[in-house]
């Protein structure tokens, strides 16, 4: 018996050792990627880099201002559409989980979430770019909005489903009409969760390249025209990295660094805001 307990303890320790080892191992890829991009990218980032358009090949300098503004504009336009639509659809799904509509619309959301981004790009290309007759930032935003929607819908739904029914009953029993119950009680109580869904969906689409290849394409010049081609961060990385020029490769690293910084900041800010605004039920 004694001896058996001894071997059992050893087995337990080995098992614990293994899980600790793998928990550590999975942090390595992220750390390595981060360090490498920071090392390669940080030296590229300076004022010129952030405020200038790309220089022609062979010339020194040049920057990514066109990609920064382009990404910002397209993500903003996508959010303006996807955030309200996603929240409203999420409210429906959480409020009426047993209806047929909720079942099918939930199914569609799941499928949409699984659609490869390049397919979204092709669809928008055939539906928007071709009929209009040219690449445009609007088409890019549409593709991005489609990518954002399922994340926002599901996170809103999950957040609101966690709120107890008693909360809604409390409000209804005071004679508060349904729409005000949702707007003044349910959404504020689930605000932290809804917000984190939005920021995560932005973090997710800001780096999407495939849907933009077919839609906004890119633009070497500074442009705010949403009906024309527009540059974006992931696209600028793609074109610079696949070019044959060494100084363009450096710019790609710089742009990658900026993109990574943005996604990281967004994730950290989300975590902090969620903690700060989390409502104690």
């Amino acid at each position, binding site marked *: 018996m004694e001896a058996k307990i001894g071997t059992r303890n050893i087995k337990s320790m080995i098992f614990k050792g293994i899980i600790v080892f793998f928990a550590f191992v999975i942090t390595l890829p992220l750390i390595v990627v981060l360090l490498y991009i920071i090392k390669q990218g940080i030296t590229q980032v300076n004022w010129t880099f952030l405020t200038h358009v790309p220089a022609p090949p062979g010339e020194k300098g040049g920057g990514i201002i066109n990609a920064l503004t382009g990404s910002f504009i397209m993500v903003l336009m996508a959010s303006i559409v996807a955030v309200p639509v996603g929240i409203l659809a999420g409210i429906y799904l959480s409020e009426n989980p047993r209806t047929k509509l909720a079942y099918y619309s939930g199914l569609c959301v799941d499928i949409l979430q699984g659609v490869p981004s390049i397919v979204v790009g092709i669809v928008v290309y055939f539906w928007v770019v071709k009929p209009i007759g040219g690449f445009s930032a609007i088409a890019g935003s549409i593709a991005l909005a489609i990518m954002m929607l399922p994340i926002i819908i599901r996170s809103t739904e999950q957040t609101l489903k966690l709120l107890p029914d008693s909360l809604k009953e409390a409000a209804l029993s005071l004679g508060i009409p349904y729409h005000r119950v949702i707007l003044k*009680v349910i959404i504020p109580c689930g605000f932290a969760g809804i917000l984190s869904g939005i920021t995560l969906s932005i973090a997710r689409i800001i780096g999407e390249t495939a849907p933009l290849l077919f839609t906004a394409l890119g633009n070497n010049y500074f442009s705010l025209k949403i009906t024309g081609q527009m540059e974006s961060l992931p696209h600028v990385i793609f074109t610079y990295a696949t070019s044959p020029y060494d100084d363009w490769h450096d710019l790609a690293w710089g742009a990658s660094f900026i993109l990574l910084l943005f996604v990281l900041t967004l994730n950290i800010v989300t975590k902090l805001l969620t903690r700060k605004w989390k409502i104690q039920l």
Partner: protein
Amino acid sequence: MENTIVRAENYNAYFGDNHVVKDVNISINKNEVIAVMGPSGCGKTTFLRGINRMHELIPNATAKGKILLEGENVYDMNAIYVRAKIGMVFQRPNPFPNLSIYDNVVAGYLLNGIKVSKADKDVIVERSLTSAALWKEVKDSLHKKGTFLSGGQQQRLCIARAIAMQPELILFDEPTSALDPISTSSVEALFHELKENYTLIIVTHNMQQAARVSDRTAFFYMGELVEFDDTKQMFTAPADQRTQNYITGRFS
């Protein structure tokens, strides 16, 4: 009849095909404390929720018959208006977690978008919290979130929230079943004071509580109103065998 505040006439309630409240006729006077007791699943809570039309919020729930609130059938009135006129306190304390204690009390106005001046709100908050015997405990922390309070304090906050709307009738759905004994006695003590200004209908699982706090008691069994009488009378000499069985603990 002048004195009647609520009267149910042939009131029936259903969940789908399940007939949970059967042909209830009852007449409740102003400033009475009514206890509604009965075993689990006897329809007492469903009946209570029928009075302020909360019953119909559950999918598949339907109701037939009349419930007259001061002579007017609540099923002919706008449900939102009915609910604003009748206060309700639930089994579990449910203050709004996003609002301060102060805002919780005036939630009925605030969330309905009814404009009330700051001075009037101050008066409503102090009066309601005083009536709910909570003012002394929270007057220095009115702007903290209501969820920081203890369970019993939260339940009294919910009572204050109901009182703030100046209802004549307040419904209590097993208001102390989630509370510890000390909080329970503080809520029960409150019933005696509230009686001065309000009519209270209290659904309870707890027979001692019914005996302690109510003027009259209604006994529900299998969806029927079996007996409705003075509390003393009911607990000393019940008219119906089923009531007798229930209060002597032969079934629960």
